[in-house]
């Protein structure tokens, strides 16, 4: 190793970023607890986004100046890889919740199991999934569910296709076919945006027609937890890939040096795999 590892001298973005995160979270807390302060929250959010913009801009500039060697590239790869692993564990907690509720919590509430005393709380309760009638009658459950073979199937096709188109774009970039890479990346972005629009339509229908709401008992809770965080991650992915498109248009990336693009692609495939899990366990089964 050559001793060329680049250690930036100083940077104001980390400290400013921490402060921005603090303002944003305090603002959100004040909104939730006291019902005021949305301006603080908005300012904090804008500040967080601004810091991300400038921090990433510094990294892009340094990368374009050729300050990063192969070892730095591996640092980024390890960093992104372990970050995605942490995201997998985040979703694992939510999938575990879904599994636990369906396999243990609801049957136990229905009196199953060695102890079977939980049934004393709500003797009339019958376990079912999706849970249409929560034990406590003051909580009104959903009266209908989203059919997996309509909008969710369409969305599955969108996301799976987008993973393929992104791979085509990546291969093209590696071959030096920049126009092809650009075009397939645009197709990917359109598919991602379509997914988000369809998800929005689905949420609207769930809330207005099916009675699937956050406070409709555990079915609504898990439904929105899993699909909501997934949708949020798709949004991050779309923004990331949009930045990659802008960088391609500005002439960034070479055939063998484009880890930012690759990291975005890793993230996109991760979001896609999570969706497959959602489609199977939230919608189909």
């Amino acid at each position, binding site marked *: 190793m050559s001793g060329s590892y680049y250690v930036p001298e100083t940077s104001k973005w980390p400290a400013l970023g921490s402060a921005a995160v603090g303002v944003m979270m*305090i603002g959100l807390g004040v909104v939730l607890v006291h019902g005021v302060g949305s301006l603080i929250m908005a300012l904090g959010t804008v500040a967080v986004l601004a810091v991300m913009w400038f921090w990433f801009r510094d990294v892009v500039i340094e990368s374009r100046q050729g300050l990063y060697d192969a070892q730095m590239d591996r640092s980024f790869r390890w960093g992104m890889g372990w970050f995605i692993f942490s995201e997998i564990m985040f979703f694992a907690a939510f999938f575990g919740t879904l599994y636990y509720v369906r396999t243990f919590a609801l049957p136990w509430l229905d009196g199953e199991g060695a102890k079977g005393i939980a049934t004393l709380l709500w003797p009339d309760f019958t376990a079912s999934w999706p849970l249409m009638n929560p034990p406590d009658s003051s909580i009104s459950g959903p009266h209908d569910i989203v059919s997996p073979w309509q909008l969710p199937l369409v969305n599955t096709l969108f996301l799976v296709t987008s993973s393929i188109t992104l791979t085509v774009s990546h291969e093209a970039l590696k071959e030096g076919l920049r126009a092809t890479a650009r075009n397939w990346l645009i197709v990917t972005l359109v598919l991602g945006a379509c997914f988000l629009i369809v998800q929005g339509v689905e949420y609207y229908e769930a809330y207005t027609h099916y009675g699937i709401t956050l406070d409709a008992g555990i079915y609504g809770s898990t439904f929105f937890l899993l699909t909501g965080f997934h949708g949020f991650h798709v949004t991050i992915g779309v923004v990331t890939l949009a930045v990659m498109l802008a960088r391609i248009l500005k002439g960034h990336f070479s055939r063998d040096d484009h880890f930012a693009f690759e990291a975005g692609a890793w993230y996109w495939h991760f979001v896609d795999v999570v969706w497959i899990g959602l489609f199977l366990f939230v919608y189909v089964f």
Partner: protein
Amino acid sequence: MAPKLPPQHPLEHSTATTAGQAHEHDDHHHYGGPGGIKRWLLTTNHKEIGSLYLIFSLSMFFIGGIFALVVRAELFQPGLQLVQPEFFNQMTTMHGLIMVFGAVMPAFVGLANWMIPLQVGAPDMALPRLNNFSFWLLPVAFGLLLSTLFMPGGAPNFGWTFYAPLSTDYGPPSTTFFIFSLHIAGISSILGAINIIATILNMRAPGMRMMDMPLFVWTWLITAFLLIAVMPVLAGVITMMLMDINFGTSFFDAGGGGDPVLFQHLFWFFGHPEVYIMILPAFGIVSAIVPTFARKPLFGYASMVYATASIAILSFLVWVHHMFVVGLPLAAELFFMYTTMLIAVPTGVKVFNWVTTLFRGSITFETPMLFSLAFIVMFTIGGFSGLMLAIVPADFQYHDTYFVVAHFHYVLVPGAIFAIIAGVYYWLPKWTGHYPDERLGRWHFWLSVIGVNLTFFPMHFSGLAGMPRRIPDYALQFADFNMVSSLGGFLFGASQLLFVAVLIKCVRGGEKAPAKAWEGAEDLEWSVPSPAPLHTFETPPDMTSQAPQRH
């Protein structure tokens, strides 16, 4: 440049090159960046960030300690004397949260920041700006957490485990802010852990294989993996709490089809690996100090690595032992009882290896060694009481008594905290260029040992006699034990002021330390000058020629 030098002992060789560099640039006294507070806000240097972490951790240690002393003062006698039960609950909760997330974890990250690049021959951490971000999130998180004390309804009062529905349906309004502070601290931990893993896997000096790494590096590699695996689960469970509190969901509400027991599963799936997060780096520190002062290589290096990995894997399979009395199927209780007891095997391997390293060594008893030896003895006591708690029928009796409090304080105070203190004494010469005051250090050690045992040993007895945890008042028969515990607590707390005195003295001056400050110290950090210059190993040392020293 390295291969051109004549062959010599690799450690001396790297001394020569780095010392030479330091003279060349004179960067040991010269600092080109901004001065004053901006230097600390903007820094990307692993040594400066390490110091920030350690100072932050020490201040949290004292704040959390004051909360503990409020608890001990109230428990000095039966009856309510000083505080109201509501405030007492806030004190036990905040004590636990601050000590776990604010004191112990940042202290280990601080040591990792300082020492891992030095021990693997790297110029800095792999991602220096991210490193600074990880640190500066912590003051934000804990400022927010401490501010809940002044909010209407008071601070969190449901214990550091924040079980639902105590924290969701019955918690104070500040619970939402508590959740956000944990989110921020969790982001800090995950980013810090990613950085540490990337540093260890990617920044080792050429020729340093994985099995050449010092055990502190190995234990941190495995700890960082645990952090990345479980901190997101904590983030998930507190997010579900947040939604139950603010958005009407039913995750932990049986009335909506959820389950409060689900909270406990998710929390302890995080919480059990978390206790190993707080002890594995301690194993690494002790595995550095014991061979140094026994002047023998560590016995069973490879088995130490495998034992650490086994503990980490098992840590994902034991979480239910925290929930034996919650009402679970018998098969689950049996499975988790046996997996828990299995952890005694790799832990036993470690204790055996430390003791065997001591066997026929030329032992001297400098302060770091004293704390390490106390660690081995008292951590083992805490391990044994853990084995007792692992037995399901016995745990039905011990659960939620002071026996549990005694157990986890034995593994955390003379366990994790003593190891951190030992590490600080051990590496202070490298950080400051001066030896810590040995006489004050000994006073600090003996008062701490006496204080810790006076505080926590009687809790075994009061617990076995049936005294419940987290209660501000108690039956008369526990009065004597509690009085002893309280006196011990104040002794331990006061003796930590000596630690501060040692630190200040050592930073200001004292006996000058050479590069290799301890006679038996062999790792790479002792090849750079003391105090370590701001930038070290800008050109990585070549470790290929180094004879295998560990096995």
